């Protein structure tokens, strides 16, 4: 356990040494641009103003969470593969370190960095929401953050497992493919042809659940009604089903565990040849 913690700390520090502060600065700039409408809108009508501000804050949180997922894939894909390419893995594995311990440490380190990044984004989102006076559903936010954490764990784990193949580009590409594949499953299963249905069912078994972003329901305001819609029933926020989301997160993490175990199995058995 101590060795895993050491490798995780090392992986976290390796990411921090790669100008992570600049990356955070860039991400904050993106967040600022996405939420610019909330800060600089000229809208006068209170309901329009509330809607613009709510959607902007929700978009900012959503974009930040996507950046966290991208970071998880990138850092996971370059973790073990980077150590193999740079040969820094030699002096680590020459010590009493099992290969799965190295992989797990890398996964934890990468995930920890993404959690810190997510925490910064959520704090900035809350600060923005407070600044523009938008109400945030704290319970919903907790569920949305939990879902993002689950997705970070899943994509980071899959990318780290694939990274043990030695090729960061392949690891990243396959992890992204696995990340977007759920979007295909429902259309395939709804096709009338049995072959597509079977393909959809097969993918549903091997692909982890989608990385749904829930921030739209966390910071919410009704769409401003047009004069023609006067008298229509009031719009209501669609509540986030916390129990379902928890189940899907747990399911996704289970998938990540299986992918990771398979990655460890192959990495443990393969020859490490350094040219």
């Amino acid at each position: 356990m101590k060795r895993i913690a050491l490798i995780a700390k090392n992986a976290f520090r390796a990411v921090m040494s790669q100008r992570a502060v600049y990356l955070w600065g860039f991400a904050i700039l993106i967040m600022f641009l996405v939420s610019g409408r909330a800060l600089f809108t000229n809208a006068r009508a209170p309901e329009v103003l509330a809607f613009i501000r709510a959607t902007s804050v929700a978009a900012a949180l959503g974009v930040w969470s996507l950046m966290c997922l991208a970071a998880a894939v990138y850092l996971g894909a370059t973790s073990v593969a980077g150590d193999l390419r740079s040969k820094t893995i030699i002096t680590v594995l020459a010590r009493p370190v099992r290969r799965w311990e190295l992989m797990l440490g890398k996964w934890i380190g990468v995930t920890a960095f993404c959690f810190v990044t997510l925490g910064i984004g959520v704090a900035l989102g809350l600060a923005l929401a407070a600044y523009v006076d938008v109400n945030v559903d704290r319970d919903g936010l907790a569920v949305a953050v939990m879902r993002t954490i689950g997705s970070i764990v899943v994509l980071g784990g899959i990318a780290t497992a694939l990274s043990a193949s030695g090729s960061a580009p392949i690891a990243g590409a396959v992890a992204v493919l696995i990340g977007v594949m759920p979007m295909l499953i429902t259309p395939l299963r709804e096709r009338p042809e049995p072959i597509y249905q079977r393909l959809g069912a097969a993918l549903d078994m091997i692909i982890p659940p989608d990385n749904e972003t829930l921030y739209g329901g966390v910071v919410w305001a009704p769409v401003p009604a047009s004069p023609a819609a006067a008298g229509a029933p009031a719009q209501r926020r669609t509540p986030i089903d916390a129990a379902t989301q928890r189940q899907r997160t747990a399911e996704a993490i289970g998938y990540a565990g299986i992918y990771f175990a398979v990655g460890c199995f192959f990495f443990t058995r393969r020859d490490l040849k350094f040219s």
Partner: protein
Amino acid sequence: MSQPVIAVANLVKNYRAGVRRNIVQAVRGLSLSVPRGSIVAFVGPNGAGKTTTIHTLLGFLKPTAGRVRVFGESPGPAVARRIGYQPEIFYTYSFYSAREALRFYGQLAGMTSSALETAIPPLLDRMGLTDAGKRPISSYSKGMAQRLGLAQALIHDPELLILDEPTSGLDPEGRRLVLDIIVEEKSRGRTVFLSSHILSDVERTCDEVVMVRQGQVVMADRLSSFGAAGQQWDVEVFGWTAAHRDLIAGLATVVHENGGTAILRCEISEKQALLRMVVGVPLEIGSVQPMRAATLEETYLKHAGAAS
């Protein structure tokens, strides 16, 4: 006799390489043994299979066939605690300072913080890195990085040191320092398995030498047997004819004969008798010298060199 620290028997390691995935034999039935407390050199040209063998000892590569034992066990994490390994080029995390790197590697080897606090300063001092101990490794020269590479191999006080070209890239002072440390480690009862191209380093430090070529051991012997004056003497004589053969029977053998010149080889105990006989015949004496075994370099060029 105690169990050897390293025992390799008939090691074969094949790779698949190229687009057609052809089999390449990197090691072909290599056998060697490293006794406890000795310094054994592992020499051979590039591509002879030295690094492949070392990486098999460390568990990075799995043997295609044959048996590899380190401290009587298969290579792996269980025995890694007892091994210190210095790769040919020490690649490490450039954001660490030397102190942090030694702390990291020491902790991975199971050392406690207090043990590291005690071990790091003298080790840095021994490597001449005390002043640079807090600087990032990215600012180190090649020689400093190489010395740090040896320090990380020594940090957990291993019983076996596996050193791959430990003096490569070092200036004469650094080279001397590293060789002195290797000899010191031996005097502390440590076993050293040293891969090197620099035969003068091998001659200076090692007890035994194992020469490899094309994945096979071509020669293994104690270093003291190279270039040493032996128990036999060579006497060069002029005016030699076939009729003189009977006169030296029992005293010497003819190892070279060309026209009227011959070289007679005798045991040291027969030298005086042979010389008296030669003077009495009479034959002219050209030279008298002890027979010298081939030097390490001569043996290397004969067995493992490119022309062999």
